[in-house]
């Protein structure tokens, strides 16, 4: 069994990003990102497309690599060290815009796979946890179905349950409702609101400003690879300080 990765002293923050820069080849896609997320804090990240918001949260679980600066997740620094990366990925769950369920497995198998193979949980216990979480997202009756037989909203809720089965400390949401029909957006957002109210640390990239107003502790606006503004939602929506933020809010809140 590999020894536990080195933990740094400052463990009060769930996520610490310090002076992080990322390039795709020669293209500077993330510029000097500084962000500290406390435990149980809910962050909503918004911004125009191409602003780097998805890239930033994908750096947090090392789906993308950053070239300079530090990212420390739950005390574990993200470096080339594979053990660190695996430790972080075990404790950070992610929900994707296009669900990314495994189509060749049933809903139950989708949820049980990672706990059984990564956390070595016995099958019976994994199935019990999975059924409990499927009930929490309100689709226990779909457990034996395949993802292809479910609607978009149901698939996204399965994806949320699948991530929660790993008992993560932090949840990342990458535009979870952007690929859904309007009727299904509500059912997914309700699940996310419940999750937030239960105290999960979460970073959510989304365009759903109603969700941000209701649940977020801080709203962050990004553009052109930089964090432009961050504020609690009341201040963010009613008194945006930056011109760029004002322009963005006027565009998306108008309809």
């Amino acid at each position, binding site marked *: 069994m590999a020894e536990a990765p080195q933990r740094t002293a400052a463990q009060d923050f769930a996520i610490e990003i310090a002076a992080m820069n990322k390039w795709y080849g020669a293209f500077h896609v993330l510029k000097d990102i500084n962000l500290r997320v406390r435990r149980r804090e809910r962050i909503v990240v918004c911004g125009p497309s191409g602003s780097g918001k998805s890239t930033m949260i994908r750096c947090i*679980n090392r*789906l993308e690599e950053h070239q300079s600066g530090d990212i420390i997740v739950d005390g574990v620094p993200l470096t080339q060290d594979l053990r660190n990366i695996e430790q972080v*990925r075990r404790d950070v769950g*992610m929900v994707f815009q296009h669900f*990314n369920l*495994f*189509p*060749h497995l049933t809903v139950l198998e989708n949820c049980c796979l990672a706990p059984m193979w990564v956390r070595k949980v016995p099958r019976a216990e994994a199935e019990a946890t999975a059924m409990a979480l499927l009930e929490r997202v309100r689709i226990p009756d779909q457990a034996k179905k395949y993802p292809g037989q479910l609607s978009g909203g149901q698939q996204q809720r399965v*994806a949320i349950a699948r991530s929660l089965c790993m008992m993560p400390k932090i949840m990342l949401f990458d535009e979870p409702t952007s690929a859904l029909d309007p009727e299904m957006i509500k059912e997914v957002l309700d699940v996310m609101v419940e999750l937030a109210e239960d105290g999960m640390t979460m970073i959510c990239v989304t365009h759903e400003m109603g969700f941000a107003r209701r649940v977020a502790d801080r709203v962050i606006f990004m553009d052109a690879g930089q964090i432009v503004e961050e504020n609690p939602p009341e201040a963010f929506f009613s008194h945006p300080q930056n011109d760029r933020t004002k322009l963005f809010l006027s565009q998306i809140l108008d309809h």
Partner: protein
Amino acid sequence: MTAFVPKPDLPPPPGSVGLAGWMRQNLFSTPLNGFLTVVVVWLIGSTVWPLVHWAFVSGVFSGRTAADCRKGGACWLFVADRLVFFVYGFFPRAETWRVDVVFAVSAAVLAALVIPRVPRKPAIAAAAFVGLPLLVTVLMHGGIFGLAQVSTDQWGGLTLTLVLSVVGIVLALPFGILLALGRRSRMPTIRVMSVVFIEAWRGVPLISVLFMASVMLPLFLPETVHPSKVLRAMIGIVMFESAYMAEVVRGGLQAIPRGQYEAAGALGLGYWRTMVLIILPQALKLVIPGIVNTFIALFKDTTLVGIIGLFDLLATVQATIMDPAWPDVATEAYLFAGSVFWVFCFAMSRYSQSLERKLQTGHRRR
């Protein structure tokens, strides 16, 4: 308010259903189609019917020697006369029961793996993977447990064809998968080695591979190691077919959306678990047609071992043509060999289709 009066169901017009309807829709729908139908029927009648007549109607099926054959009809008597040779090759007649045992066990394993209701297939497959080679070595090669040793040079006919094909099929798939994964690896050394292997073995004809394996392999090995001709042919075939299989599997791997890799990674599954549990099941399912295609081609490619002096099924049939006891049976002989190959290849093809049907479970909505 008037009441709803349902109209009675009427039968369809007579010319639109049944055989007449089908013929009208598919064969005679337009004047051009009608003309083409007549032409094709005439072509079939003038080519296929004489063949069928020669092969079956005037064919001679009972008798002992070539003298019993009629002119103008196919002579099938050599099949019964030479059947033992076709199936066992030069295997000593007294020991052919050992080959029969291997055939019986292999057939049982195959049935267990193919029939859907039999449980614990992975365990059976794993046991067969280890047990069958041992069984073949002990029973067919012999030399231990009081069994007489039969050199592999005496293996021949259908036995040799099946041994080469099964070994080739069973080994080419895992090697091909590893090569495909290697070619897509982010580690440069592994990627380069995989590319070199694939391009080298794919770039030369199988005949020259077999020739080189037969002639050159002994030069590279130490003095004490003397692989038999059959072993050399096996190595050549496995290397060659792995390279082909690698590209087929790579096509499947490319088709898996990146989101699958990302979701697996985000859940904490490492490289090998992601591949074995998530990616390969989907990728292999996608390329079953390509994989079975390669298997079928492999089965037929084993006929090339005739070039290095091994007597597979085709070579034994060809030997019969040269035999003065059976003059002028060349056409019948090749037809016979072709039919045997066709039976095996068609069986593989049908199995692949049933496998694809079975594996459609929820994968796509189609």
